[in-house]
């Protein structure tokens, strides 16, 4: 088992755990935590997919001269994508927490069972 394989499996497991939390928990804050775990898992998967065997960070300096860069650097595109995904994940989490605060203000409860009146 190579290192990126282990990281990829960890990311996929974390995604599953987060999804389990989202589907089974009844507390809104725990659902949000599940969502954040799922997002983190997918970031780990994205970064793991970009790994190249024995690669290093794609930053050109004394340790990685330009002539060797194409042979020894890892894929920079998934890393750039992960930066984007982290920022959007933070934004979505912030909006979800704001909604959780407003929902708590409406019913004085954080359980989604308290909000069943407009389910369908």
């Amino acid at each position, binding site marked *: 088992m190579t290192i990126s394989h282990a990281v*990829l499996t960890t990311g996929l497991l974390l995604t599953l755990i987060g999804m*389990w939390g989202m589907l089974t928990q009844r507390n809104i804050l725990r659902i949000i935590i599940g969502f954040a775990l799922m997002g983190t898992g997918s970031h780990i998967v994205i970064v793991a997919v970009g790994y190249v065997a024995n690669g290093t960070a794609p930053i*050109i300096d004394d340790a990685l001269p330009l002539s060797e860069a194409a042979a020894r650097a890892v*894929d920079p*595109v998934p890393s750039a994508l992960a930066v984007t995904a982290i920022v959007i994940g933070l934004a979505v989490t912030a909006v979800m927490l704001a909604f959780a605060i407003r929902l708590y203000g409406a019913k004085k409860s954080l359980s989604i069972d308290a909000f069943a009146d407009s389910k369908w």
Partner: protein
Amino acid sequence: MMRLAAAACLLLALGAIFATISLDFRERTALPPLAAAYVEMVPRELGAPNVITGILLNYRAFDTIGEVAVLFMVAAGIGLLLGPGRKPKDAGRPGDAARDESEPEPSTEIVRNGADVMVPLIALFAVYIVLHGHLGPGGGFQGGAVVASCVLLMLLARPDYRIRLAQLSVAESLAGVFIVLAGMAGLVFAGGFLDSRVLPLGEFGTLFSAGAIPILSVLLGTKVGCELSVIIERFRAWGR
């Protein structure tokens, strides 16, 4: 019970898909053509040692602007949800009114002294991360997030500290305007919208190099830091 069973079925199916992905995964031994081109092009054409920053702030800078727009919309949306005047006036039980009037509970000495030491250091670190985005790990988004963590620590240590939302919005709007102006400059003087080669590339690996990338990084850091601080302040103002 039904719900748990349905969730378990869904997760088992998903787990099976993930297991096939994991079993079929083979570690790459070479870069795909696009990545190899980026790794070659960013240092050569943009003069930026950090390939990821080069991609984020030049080749895919348009996406980065969209991302900043998403953050702006989130700050605006949280203002809509938790802004002043949104709070219900009849805030429940009789005891609440007296507690709302009182001063916020002061934080402990450990937190206050820790913040006194850490806040300037974190602020300095944020500036370093923003300015060295094109040379090493870092950049506008990361530095902006560090700025916001500095503001959060400040608010934890001094609950009566007031963030001036008006100043933050002015700084944020100016940063946004300048990012778009830099983009227009790229359109006129270089290869396209947000092309960072409007300024000379300078000496490879020094602080003032890589064209407009450090400037874009600073503007982005300002904007992200302001937006995240506004979000934190909205949450705080709602709670008091």
